[in-house]
C-alpha cells in the first residue's frame, strides 16, 4: 500500500536501537481455531525487550488474531503464551496483570465517545491502577503533550480528526505505563497526511525503547524502525528476518508474491 511517507532514507538505523536479552513475550506452539477453522497454526515467537516487530501478510492471514491473543482479547486453544514472565491462562488475575502491562491501539481508535480526551486518558489509571485523579491528570497531560495535542484535552473524540484520535488512543494506552505496545493496523483508517503524524508518534516511541509489535502495511515504517519483519500467511509464520534482508532477499515464494503486490512492482 502506501509507501509515500517514508521515501527518504531512515532517520535512525534500526540496529542503533538497543535490544536486551530479556524476553518480553514468548509464544510457543500456539494454535487457535474458530469452530473448525484453523486460524493460527503452531505459532512460535520470542520477543525481546526493546524489539520493534512489524507483522505483515495478506488479509485474513491471522495477524490481528495473533496479536489479540497476546492480551487475551482472543483465547488460544493450545500452546503457551508467556508475557513478562506471566503465563496467559483463564486465571483472571494473570489476565489483569498482563493487560495492565500491554497497551493496544486499534485500527478504528475505539476512543470512548462519551468521555473527553482527558477522561479517556485517566479512566483506566483511576479505576484500574487506583491513581489519584490529580496525578492521573498530570500523567495524561504529559502524554497528550507527547503526542502533540494537549490543547484538545477537554474536547470529545467526535470533535477530533482521525489522526488526532489515533494519537489520543496511543496516549491513552501510554497512561497505563505499559512495557509492551501492540498496534493493529493503526494507520489503515487514515488519510495519507494523517498517517505521517501517527507514524511519527510511533517512531518516537520506538526510539525510547518501547517493545512494540505492529501489524501494518506501512513498509517504509518497517524499514525505518523495525528490527524484525514477520510475514504471516494462512495462520502461519512463513518467514521472519531483518527488514533489509526481508525486503531485498525474501526467501519464500509467498513472501515474494506478497511483496511484489504491496510494493506495487
Amino acid at each position, binding site marked *: 500500500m502506501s509507501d509515500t511517507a517514508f521515501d527518504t532514507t531512515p532517520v535512525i538505523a534500526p540496529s542503533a536501537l538497543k535490544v536486551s536479552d530479556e524476553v518480553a513475550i514468548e509464544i510457543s506452539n500456539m494454535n487457535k481455531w474458530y469452530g473448525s477453522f484453523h486460524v493460527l497454526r503452531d505459532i512460535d515467537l520470542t520477543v525481546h525487550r526493546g524489539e520493534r516487530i512489524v507483522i505483515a501478510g495478506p488479509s485474513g492471514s491471522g495477524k490481528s488474531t495473533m496479536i489479540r491473543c497476546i492480551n487475551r482479547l482472543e483465547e488460544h486453544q493450545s500452546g503457551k503464551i508467556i508475557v513478562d514472565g506471566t503465563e496467559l491462562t483463564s486465571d483472571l488475575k494473570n489476565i489483569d496483570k498482563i493487560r495492565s502491562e500491554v497497551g493496544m491501539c486499534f485500527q478504528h481508535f475505539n476512543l*470512548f465517545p462519551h468521555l473527553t480526551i482527558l477522561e479517556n486518558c485517566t*479512566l483506566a489509571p*483511576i479505576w484500574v491502577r487506583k*491513581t*489519584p485523579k490529580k496525578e*492521573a491528570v498530570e500523567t495524561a497531560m504529559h502524554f497528550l503533550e507527547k503526542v502533540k495535542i494537549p490543547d484538545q484535552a477537554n474536547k470529545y473524540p467526535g470533535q*477530533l480528526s482521525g489522526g488526532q484520535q489515533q494519537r489520543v488512543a496511543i496516549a491513552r494506552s501510554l497512561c497505563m505505563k505499559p512495557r509492551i505496545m501492540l498496534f493493529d493496523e493503526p494507520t489503515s483508517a487514515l488519510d495519507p497526511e494523517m498517517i505521517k503524524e501517527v507514524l511519527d508518534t510511533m517512531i518516537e516511541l520506538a526510539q525510547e525503547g518501547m517493545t512494540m509489535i505492529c501489524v501494518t502495511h506501512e513498509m517504509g515504517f518497517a524499514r525505518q524502525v523495525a528490527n524484525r519483519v514477520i510475514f504471516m500467511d494462512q495462520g502461519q509464520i512463513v518467514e521472519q528476518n531483518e527488514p533489509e534482508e526481508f525486503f531485498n532477499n525474501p526467501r519464500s515464494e509467498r513472501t515474494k508474491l506478497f511483496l511484489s503486490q504491496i510494493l506495487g512492482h
Partner: protein
Amino acid sequence: MTTFTDPPAESFKLSMLVYDTRYRSITFQILALVAVLLLFGWLTMNTAQNLNDLGKEPSFGFLGESAGYDINQRLIDYSSQSTHLRAAFVGLLNTLLVAAMGCATATVIGVIVGVLRLSGNWLVARLMTVYVEIFRNVPVLMWIVLCMAILIEAMPAPSAFRGDNPDATMKLFDTIAITNRGVYIPEPLFSRSLGNLHIGTAFDISINLLAILFVLGVSLWIARDITRRANAKQEATGLRPRTWHTRLAVIVLPTAILLAFLGFHLGYPELKGFNFAGGTYMRNSLIALWLALSLYTAAFIAEIVRAGILAISTGQTEAAAALGLRGNRIMSLVVLPQAMRVIIPPLISQYLNLTKNSSLAIAVGYMDITGTLMGITLNQTGRELETVLLGMLVYLTISLIISGVMNWYNNRVKLVER
C-alpha cells in the same frame, strides 16, 4: 492596509422567501400555522353550530354535580354523593397508579430480559426470545382479559380459606391472601398518627406520609453528599472508601426511628366470615391490568435494551478490556452510559404507550380516568364533547410530563459530536 466592512447589503427579493435558506423555513412554518389555525377555526365553528342546532350549550357545569355512582378501587375518599369532578380525580389517580406501577415493573423485567437475551447461555437466550415474541405479537387487550380470567378462574375463593383444613392458605407467613376477588396485602397503620392535613374541603393528605417523605428526602440528600465526598477522596488519593454501609445507615435509620415514633405497624388481612377484612385490598382488575401492561410493554423494552447494548460496538468493550478494566466496570463506565443514549428515546415512547394503553382498563372494570370521566360520567350527563376533551387533555398532560422529564434526562447524557 485592509479595512473590514460589512458585505454589501443584498436587496430583498420576494423569491428569497422560498429559495433563501435563511427565510425558507420561516416561510413554511408561517404557512403551516395559518393552515392549522384555519382548520381549527372551521372545526370549532362547525361544532358550535351543530351543538346549537341540537340545543346543547357546551358547558362544564356538570362537573360540580353529584356523581351518583360508586367506585370500588380508589386511593382517596369518595362516595356516590361526591361530584363528577372528584370521580374524575379518583379515576386520574387510578390511571397514574397503574401507569406508575406498570412503567416500573416493565422497566425491570424489560432490562433483565433484554440483557439475558444477549447471554451466552443458549437456553436462556432462546427462552427470552420466546417471551418477547409471544408477548409483543398479541394485542395487549387480550393479555389484560387473559390475566383477569386466570385470576378469577384459577385463584381460590375466600371461602376456601375457611375451616380447620382449608383448601387454600395465605402466602408469605400468612400475610398475603390471593383470592379470586383480588389480593389482600398488609396495610401500613400508625398507632400514634399525626392525622391529616386538610386542603380546602375536598382533599386530605396524611401528615405521616409527608413526614416520612421529608425525612427520606433529607436522608437521601445526606447520602448523596457522602458519595460526593467519596468521589473527592478518590480524586485526591486514588482509593475509594467503602461507603455503602454508612449510606445505607443514613438512609434507613432516620426513617426507621420516625416509623417507630409514629407507632408504625402492619395491619394484616384476616378472614372474617365469608371474606377477608383489614389489609390493603387490590382488586383483580388492577392486578390483571398491571400484570398485562407490564409483561406486554416489557417485551418491547427488552428489545430496546438489547438494541441499545448491541449498538455499542465491540470495539468499545475491547478497548476497555485492553486497558485492564473488568467486565462490570466496562458495563458501568463504558457500555451503559453510551447505551442509555440509544435506549432513552424509544423508552419514552414505551412509557407513553403503557400510559395510554392503561385506558383499556375499562375491559376489566378498573375505574381509571377513561372509566369514570369518559365512561359513567359521560353516560349519565350526555356531555360527550366536554368529557372527551377533558380526557384528552388529561392524557396529553400526563404524556407531556413524562416525555419532558425523560427528554431532560436524555439531554443531560447526550453525545458531543462535531
